[in-house]
């Protein structure tokens, strides 16, 4: 059935409204970041003068050259480890029969339920007590974030692998493929959209993570990631609003670029997850 003109207009109207709601804060941040007015500014004030000074000031003050490298290292490590473990766990939970499968999956899902605020302080003390060699290292943050995100990753990949026709896996087995080859040759190729989506989601979460790097890098401030480094622009009594906005824009840029690059696959992955999961 073809929608009527009124229905089409109404649909576009609603979509435009929601798009405006999503874009408005970003416009505010861009305007603030480019605002050359001295003194306090509000997000939606049209700048009297446009300047890129805020960008360079934030870059230097927050030491973003180093912080962005830290963020890139940590996020790359977290994405690689989380996606690998999620694919393996998702495949096992979806397609392999083993004793205690459902109980183990339930335990894994607890990772969804427990907030990181509840574990970050015990984690900090446990690391100092039992694995002091990891204290303040990139490896520690990568492991901690991976542990936090892998529950979602396994859940996500299990939903995808669970939607693969069972007969495909049976056919591969009868054709002589073991579990590894079945995963690699049969289950993984059609999972590409789901994996790309997982990569983008985990990268986004890891890149934006604030609490874990703030606490775990307390002893090594030179390792802090970009979101934490912006904290220097917020003082006890004053806040460099324009600098903060400029810094936020620079930090958000890699995620936006990643999203733009994988947009098509991302939508396909989200849709396939929604339908098949």
């Amino acid at each position, binding site marked *: 059935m073809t929608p009527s003109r009124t229905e089409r207009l109404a649909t576009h109207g609603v979509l435009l409204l929601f798009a405006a709601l999503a874009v408005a804060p970003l416009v505010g941040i861009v305007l603030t970041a480019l605002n050359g007015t001295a003194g306090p500014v509000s997000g939606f004030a049209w700048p009297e003068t446009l300047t890129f000074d805020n960008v360079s000031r934030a870059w230097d003050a927050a030491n973003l050259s180093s912080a962005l490298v830290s963020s890139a290292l940590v996020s790359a490590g977290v994405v690689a480890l989380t996606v690998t473990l999620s694919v393996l766990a998702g495949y096992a939970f979806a397609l392999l029969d083993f004793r205690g499968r459902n109980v183990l999956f339930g335990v894994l899902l607890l990772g969804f339920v427990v907030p990181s605020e509840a574990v970050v302080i015990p984690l900090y003390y446990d690391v100092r007590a039992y694995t002091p060699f990891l204290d303040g290292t990139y490896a520690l943050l990568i492991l901690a974030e991976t542990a936090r995100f892998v529950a979602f990753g396994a859940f996500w990949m299990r939903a995808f692998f669970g939607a693969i026709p069972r007969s495909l896996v049976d*056919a591969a087995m009868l054709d002589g*493929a073991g579990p590894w080859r079945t995963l690699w040759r049969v289950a993984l190729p059609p999972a590409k959209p789901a994996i790309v989506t997982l990569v983008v989601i985990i990268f986004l979460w890891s890149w934006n993570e604030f609490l874990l790097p703030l606490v775990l890098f307390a002893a090594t401030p030179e390792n802090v990631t970009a979101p934490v480094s912006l904290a220097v622009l917020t003082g006890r009594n004053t806040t460099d609003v324009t600098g903060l906005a400029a810094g936020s824009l620079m930090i958000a840029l890699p995620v936006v670029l990643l999203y733009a690059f994988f947009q098509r696959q991302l939508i396909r992955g989200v849709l396939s997850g929604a339908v098949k999961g």
Partner: protein
Amino acid sequence: MKAIRIQGVTKRFAGGVTAVDAVDLEVEAGEFMVLVGPSGCGKTTLLRMLAGLETVSDGCILLDGNDITHVHARRRDIAMVFQDYALYPQMTVEANLSFALRMRKLSKEDIRSRVTDVAATLELEPLLDRRPHALSGGQRQRVALGRAIVREPAAFLMDEPLSNLDAKLRGTMRSELARLHARLNVTTVYVTHDQVEAMTLGGRVAVMSEGRVQQCGTPREVYERPANAFVAAFMGSPPMNLVTARIDGDTAVAGPLRVALPRDAAVEETVTLGVRPNALQLASESDPAAFAAVVDVVEELGDERLVGFRVGGESGTDATAKLPSAGEIRIGDRIHLTVVGDVHFFAADTGTALGVAPPVRHAATK
């Protein structure tokens, strides 16, 4: 080609459901055995146990005399064609055909030669570079068959491979399968719920119900001498007419029918009588063996027609006659029929076959 022997095989699922119950079956080397039965009768579970895709709760499976009950599926040397074809969607037809050979690390020359042979046999050469989504249902079916054939396995297992095809293509593929089996002569176990497929393809047919093999024999044996009322009703299209009859001396009486009991039949107060629809024929009112029936359904098939009526009045049993399409028969017409084929006797309680009586000579009433 190797023989398959199934000895007392049982499958119990968690929760206590017994899908397959102590099945004994022997499939000779090179034989085409069809497992047929309604949904949920255990035929696919039995096939999956043969393939090694389901564990066996009790009993054992022998392939060429070797116990393979606990051998992993990928080491059984058995190929399977799935109902949904199970073609690898990201691979071309050629890669699908060669996958099992690559897994077995055959040389490139061997793989190329076998794939070329199978592609020629099944007329798949122009499709080798295509992916499954670019193939029609019939082409996918042929690729699935090719994937099984190219392995040159000890036995083929086929799980309702024609059920996703339209009626015309199903008929064509049925003939192709029969020709292919005649040429390759590989031991085949074929699962279907379609009794026409079972009758046309099977060297022997095993009719299953409630996890058990009810009867195993050639299609003609199963059709002409069903072991029980279930087999009688399941095999044949339309199914055999079954009516309850009371015993009156040495005859069984069901509505207008009066049939002499078969010799040595151990009957009690009632029996179930079975008459094939094609064993009924139009007769004149004056025929002493004729009985009257009021038509309540007419289905035209072209050269024949199925005529439905009720035996034993309003509260009686629905029955069908398969009659030539000559003349005119309408709903509500009063017609006269005679039984010109065998009348089967089954025990009223267990359904077990008791014997067969010759055609009816005299109807009880007109």
